[in-house]
């Protein structure tokens, strides 16, 4: 599994609440049988105009987005469909972390399995980051998973929560399927007890 320890990167802000996975990756792109290439069509309906040309007003098409690895999004990011194509598309574009006040459950699970770190911050920090994105779009944020901290360019540091098991998996690049396969004896015993 993809690893995550620290990240020093610029952010790009999408100040919209309840961004659903249909917006992150529209259904027309779900007909793939692999995980590749979805970065080119992430946020497709917002990113491209009717004629297929890039929408110059959309932030991912602006210079600030080039090389940005942190997505700063509105509340309740990733609601809706369970499509893992959403984190595949986000990581395909180059994102390694998403910051929001909350994440939909399935999206969070899917993101963690792809080394995309969901960073939950409180409302004041959230606002501070949006302000920063306006005032200093080139600013670098530092995310440190071992200490669970996010550091702003001015040195302000906030901590963020993460499930201890998920954290260990990200730090070690644990293969979760391998981990569960390790419980074969218990699974067999469960099946013997129940069926």
């Amino acid at each position: 599994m993809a690893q995550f320890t620290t990240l020093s990167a610029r952010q790009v802000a999408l100040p919209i609440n309840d961004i659903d996975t249909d917006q992150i990756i529209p259904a027309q792109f779900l007909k793939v049988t692999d995980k590749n290439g979805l970065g080119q069509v992430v946020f497709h309906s917002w990113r491209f105009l009717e004629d297929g040309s890039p929408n110059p007003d959309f932030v991912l098409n602006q210079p600030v987005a080039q090389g940005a690895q942190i997505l700063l999004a509105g509340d309740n990011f990733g609601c809706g469909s369970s499509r893992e194509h959403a984190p595949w598309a986000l990581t395909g574009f180059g994102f390694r972390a998403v910051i929001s006040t909350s994440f939909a459950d399935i999206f969070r699970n899917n993101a963690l399995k792809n080394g995309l770190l969901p960073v939950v911050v409180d409302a004041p920090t959230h606002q501070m980051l949006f302000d920063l994105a306006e005032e200093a779009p080139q600013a670098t944020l530092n995310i440190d998973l071992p200490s669970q901290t996010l550091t702003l360019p001015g040195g302000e540091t906030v901590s963020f929560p993460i499930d201890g098991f998920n954290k260990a998996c990200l730090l070690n690049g644990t293969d979760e399927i391998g981990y569960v396969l390790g419980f074969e004896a218990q699974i067999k015993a469960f099946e013997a007890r129940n069926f």
Partner: protein
Amino acid sequence: MSRTLFEKIWDAHVVTQEPDSPAVLYIDLHLVHEVTSPQAFTGLRSRGLKVRRPERTVATMDHGIPTTPLDVPIADQLAAHQIKTLETNTSEFGVRLYGMHSEHRGIVHVIGPELGFTQPGMTIVCGDSHTSTHGAFGALAFGIGTSEVEMVLATQCLLQRKPKTCEVRVDGQLAAGVSSKDIILALIAKIGVGGGTGYVFEYTGSAIRGLTMEQRMTICNMSIEGGARAGMIAPDDATIEYVAGREFAPKGAAWDAAIARWRGLPSDDGATYDSSIVLDAAALEPMITYGTNPGMGMRITERVPDPANLGDANQKLALEKALNYMDLRPGQPLLGKKVDVVFIGSCTNSRISDLRLAAGLLKGRKVADGLRVMVVPGSQDVKKQAEQEGLDTVFKEAGAEWREAGCSMCIAMNGDQLQPGQYAVSTSNRNFEGRQGKGGRTFLASPLTAAATALTGTITDVRTLI
């Protein structure tokens, strides 16, 4: 100790629980479809693993499948390839497939219950968020991502943290013209699309008890639109009656033993939930959405809300953005709003009782001039049943399209889609931007509201027609 329905099922499925780690939870039934499974089978193959329990795995193709007769090759090469991939994967790994030409094919959340795979007390997963539908049977059922699909294929287990529980109590009698779809739309309008995040809902109360299984499925189906991964309803006589005799339901002594087990599932007296919500069924009216997520809903007689009245800046922005996309004005009524398409279908409302309700209104009448009305049964079995009852004739004579089963315009992956700018009243579950086709605009509503709108061509309160 008193336990809830959820806790009983959870406890019975924990294989092991290491300290500080998520539980390893056993999965009784794994449903698979063509869109979220190919990468999982690829992963399995590259690890040299087999499907651990093929007999607990059931596959079908529903998202990308055309709803025109399947006697010609699928024109969309990508969809055709994805469907072919599922055929190859299921045959290689020995998984039961309800394929293109199966007479039992259909939307995965319609055929699971219909064939008797879905049973009380089970843990059920699928790479699809509307797996919550199956909770109507008193099962713990939720959607998972493709990495988790691979894990379940390989191990028949999932790693899960125990979610919190929320009782959604709905008491009272629904008025005429108000249905279970309106209950769930009203709930989501109240709590918002993130209101249930981290929770499993258990729907209780006299209004829920009075619903048929199909009506209960509509409610559990949309639990995810309120952010809850799962929604459950305790099994009762209606549940047992529905499951009895279905192809994969237990038979003989196993059936008697199953009933005894299922009777023990309802939450104990005195069991407690982490949170609770109360709705008064008698106060509900037909609901409709006006915005671009299922939480943006209102009573059909209300007016579109004004962003200026919202205190929270982000919510204001979200509403402005939604109204802009929908091309609606604050304060505008939706009643009388002209629409281009009516879609009756999806895993929320495409079962036989939904079609009967719609047909009941359309019988002997004509759909409005210039309006496209699509009726898409949830499964080929539903289609057959409807045709035996002559519902297809009712729809066709009224001027509606009668299609083959599939997800169709709910997700617009198969070519059934809105044109940019078009408005639809839809019985499906998501009104996200572009969900029914790029630039398309969706009003979510019940089958009754959809049928009433089909007759007039404008958004109509069904209570004026009955």
